[in-house]
Structure formats: C-alpha cells, structure tokens
C-alpha cells in the first residue's frame, strides 16, 4: 500500500508499508548523486510516536534522533501595569508605583551528535527593573500596598545543557544547568526516561531533577528585616502517560511532585502588625514545602478547517494550604500551509496560603507570616494572540563536510513568529469568592510582547 505524504508546500514523499508495519520511502526527492539523502521531515515524523512528552530540557517533539541542526532565538518584553493610585500606600514616604519591566533574550541549539544521541544547549539573559511590593498597610480599614523604591535593577543569566540517548523503544535524557542573578545562584541536575508501547501509540515517561540555590539578599545590612546568606534545595519528580486516541487526537496525563527545603521566604518582603505598638516584621515561611501538580492535556486536529485545538487543565495543591486550577485553551488556525494564527485564553484561580494575611492583628506574632500577593486568594484571566510563518527551503547552500557532521545539511527551513499576551488578576476572577480584607492590593496586570525565529539547517 503506497501513500503520498506532503512534507511541505513543495515536497512529496511516497511511502509504503513494510511487513512489520513500519514505513519505507519509495521515492525521495532532492537526492543529489554525491550528497547524503536528507530524510524528509514527513518520513521522520511518521515513524516517531508523535507523543514524546516534553523532556526535562530537550526539544518538544523529538523521540527519534534529530537529523538536522536547529537553532531557536526569542526576544520578549514584559511590562507590568503601574500600581493603581487607589491601591498605593504613601505612608512610608518611599515607594514607586512603577512595577516590573523585563527584557529577555533566549537562545537554543539542538545538534545531532551521533546516530543515537542529540545535544541541546540553552541560554537565557534578562534585565529586570522596577519597584516591587514590600508590605501592606491597612489605613482606615482598606489594605493598601507599600512598594519599594524603583531601585531594583537586576539581571539573570541561565545556562542549560542536555543530552538525549535514543534506544529502540524510547530515550534517556540527562541535563545540568546554572542560573545566576545579583543576589542568587542556582545549580540544577536532571535525568529522565521515556518508553514507547503499542506500536508507539502509548508513551510512558519519568524524570527527576535536583536543584540547590544560594540567596544573598542585597543591602541586607540596611534593612533589619532582611536576612543574609540563605540556602535551599529541592527535588522534583515527574511521571507521565500519553496516548494516541485517533488519527487526529492525542491525550496526556502527568503528575509532578516537588519537595523544597531551606529558606523559602522572600527576603525583600515584610508584613505589618497593626495597633499602636505595631511593627513591620520580616516575611517568614515554613522551611519545608511539598507540592503536587496534575496536568491533563488534549490535542485534536480538525482536518476540514485545517485547525488544531489545544486544551490543558492543571490542578495544583501544596502543604502551605494553596489549591489552584488552571485552564488553557488555544486554537491553531492554519492558512495557505505557511501561516498559523493562534488565539488562546487562560483562566487561573488560587486559594490562599495558611499563613497569608494582608496585615497582622495587634499583638499577633505568628511563626509563619506573609503579605505576598502571590500567596493570596485571587483569579487571573489572560488572552494571547500569535502569528507564525513557516518557510521550507528558504535558502539553499552546499554545506562543507565539517558542518555536515553536526547535522547542517544543504537547506534552511525558517519559522518566525510574533505574539502578544495581556494578563489581569483580580479577586473577582477566583473560583471561590474573596473577601475585601483578604484581597491583596498588589495583584498584578501585565503585557508581554515576543518575537522569535527558528531555523532548521
């Protein structure tokens, strides 16, 4: 039985089924007499399970060794709305309403190393500036946010390397990385594995990662509530299951468990005790934390309209008392084969941590306490729009032998995209009603603009 599969706008590959239910090409186009035949993406795609769960750090799809070197670059700009004057406390005399602004550059390379191994390298650099929430004042009953001065300027550098080892029925992955900010340093390691069953209709995966972080808060001497030199470590375990449901649909279910130990508070945050002798005391959180995340994902392609539906639901809970729900829906609409427009919407709802409060009552001095809005009860809604174009063989060249050994072939496929996101958080978006005294005045709203370019060489 022969079928013609469209590889891209211009290429066709004719394949036929073999006796052991695999496929073999009958004709391959672009095969020059003296160059290695470049396996078509369609052929490679057909013989993989199309189910590979995103690895610890590797590319999103590959569960067969990649044939071509790929490079991805992205630049994004993140900007939070200024804190509204109605939520801003001027009682401290300090503080700016201008919140965070972040410029981020990301780069990723995936290279075939041997016939059965791939190597990935990922680099991130970002610059952050702006004021951030410090503690909450309850002037005349209504909680208002006290902000730091707009002096927080920081940069983050992140480096990650990973290797995939491919086996007959799956792959193993190892990774290692470091992350550095002015006041922070983190090292992380991970291992993972994936196995295919039922003629690659089913994939099981498991992974574990470990991270050790050192925190050295800036200006610790200037602030009585700010600690110096703290550490923490965490271990993250993952198990996943994915299944092809039909020619046009797949589903996956994953579980994550994370245990963290050490200094887990925010050194730049505090909480106010109200009352005549009330003080502003340091944010303090338990020295251990257990978290569980369950994620269910569904993908369905509608051939008649050339569109794909993505639906994700995540349930989260931890032993600090927080429960959250996330629903993410996206529609990928294809036009002319090379243009994809993707609108998407996300709804998020979280409950509060056991030790969260906007302010502490007079005389109250609990062991654990935080006014951090990120531990408060609220909901969030965000919408995104993305446009992506894909051009196969946009440029042809003869790659020298030494480049061919790292997977660079004789053509360049290019993918470029632009996206925009708008995010709002508010007590009203929560699944459960939030009282006025509980709603954090510092809830955030932001925008993200991103542009990206990817090349398959």
């Amino acid at each position: 039985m022969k079928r013609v599969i469209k590889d891209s706008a211009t290429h066709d590959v004719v394949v036929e089924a073999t006796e052991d239910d695999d496929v073999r090409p009958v004709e391959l186009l672009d095969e020059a007499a003296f160059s290695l035949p470049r396996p078509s993406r369609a052929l490679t795609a057909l013989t993989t399970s199309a189910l590979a769960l995103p690895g610890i750090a590797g590319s999103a799809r590959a569960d067969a060794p990649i044939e071509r070197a790929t490079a991805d670059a992205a630049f994004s700009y993140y900007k939070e709305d200024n804190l509204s004057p109605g939520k801003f406390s001027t009682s401290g005399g300090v503080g700016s309403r201008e919140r965070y602004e972040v410029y981020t550059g990301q780069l990723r390379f995936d290279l075939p190393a041997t016939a059965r191994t791939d190597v990935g390298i990922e680099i991130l650099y970002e610059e952050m500036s702006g004021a951030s929430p410090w503690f909450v004042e309850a002037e005349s009953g209504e909680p208002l946010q006290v902000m730091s001065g707009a002096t927080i300027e920081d940069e983050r550098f992140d480096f990650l390397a990973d290797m995939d080892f491919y086996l007959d029925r799956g792959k193993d992955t190892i990774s290692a990385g470091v992350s550095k900010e002015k006041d922070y340093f983190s090292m992380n390691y991970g291992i993972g594995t994936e196995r295919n069953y039922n003629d690659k209709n089913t994939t099981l995966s498991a992974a574990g990662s470990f991270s050790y972080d050192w925190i050295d808060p800036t200006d610790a001497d200037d602030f009585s509530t700010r600690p110096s030199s703290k550490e923490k470590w965490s271990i993250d375990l993952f198990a996943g299951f994915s299944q092809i449901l039909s020619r046009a649909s797949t589903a996956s279910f994953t579980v994550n468990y994370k245990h963290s130990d050490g200094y887990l508070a925010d050194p730049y945050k505090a909480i106010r005790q109200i009352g005549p002798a009330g003080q502003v005391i340091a944010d303090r959180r338990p020295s251990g934390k257990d978290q569980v995340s369950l994620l269910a994902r569904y993908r369905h392609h509608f051939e008649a309209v050339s569109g794909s539906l993505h639906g994700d639901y995540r349930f989260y809970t931890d032993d600090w008392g927080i429960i959250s729900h996330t629903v993410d829906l996206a529609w990928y609409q294809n036009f002319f084969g090379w243009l994809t427009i993707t609108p998407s919407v996300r709804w998020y709802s979280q409950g509060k941590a056991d030790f969260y409060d906007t302010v502490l009552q007079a005389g109250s001095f609990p062991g654990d306490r935080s006014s951090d809005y990120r531990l408060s009860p609220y909901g969030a809604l965000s919408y995104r729009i993305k446009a992506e174009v894909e051009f196969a063989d946009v440029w042809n060249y003869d790659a020298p032998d030494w480049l061919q050994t790292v997977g660079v072939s004789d053509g360049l496929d290019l993918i470029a995209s632009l996206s925009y996101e708008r995010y709002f958080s508010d007590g009203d978006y929560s699944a459960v009603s939030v009282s006025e005294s509980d709603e954090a005045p510092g809830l955030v709203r932001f925008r993200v603009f991103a542009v990206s370019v990817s090349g398959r060489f």
Partner: protein
Amino acid sequence: MKRINALVLILVIGAISSGCVQVKPWERDLLARRDMGWEPDTLEAKREAHIYFSKEASMPGGSGGGGGCGCN
C-alpha cells in the same frame, strides 16, 4: 492520599490504553503536525512557565526541572 490516587489513575489508564485504537505509522501525518505537539514552541513554553511561576503560587506541570530564580 492524593498522591496514591494519582498513581492508581496512571496505572488504570495504562491498562486501558493497551486495548485502545492502534494508529499505524503511515496514518500519523496529522499527528506529526507542528501544531499538534504538546508544546509546539519550546522557548515560548519555557518563558510562559517562568512568568506564571514567578507571579503565581503554583508549580508548572510537566517535567521541566531547570533553574529557579530569586523571583520578586
């Protein structure tokens, strides 16, 4: 208790799936589409996961370990 329930769910789904439809390799053209992947754009997925992780209380799902941050 919740962790045990999750594990049982995985095992049950695994048992059921072995009886599910088997899509042959030459029938997987639609599944191989870029827009049918779990995360078609890896860098975007990481960037978004990092933003939500920094600004919300929850942990991203999926096997992402990776670096933390001193997020404020």
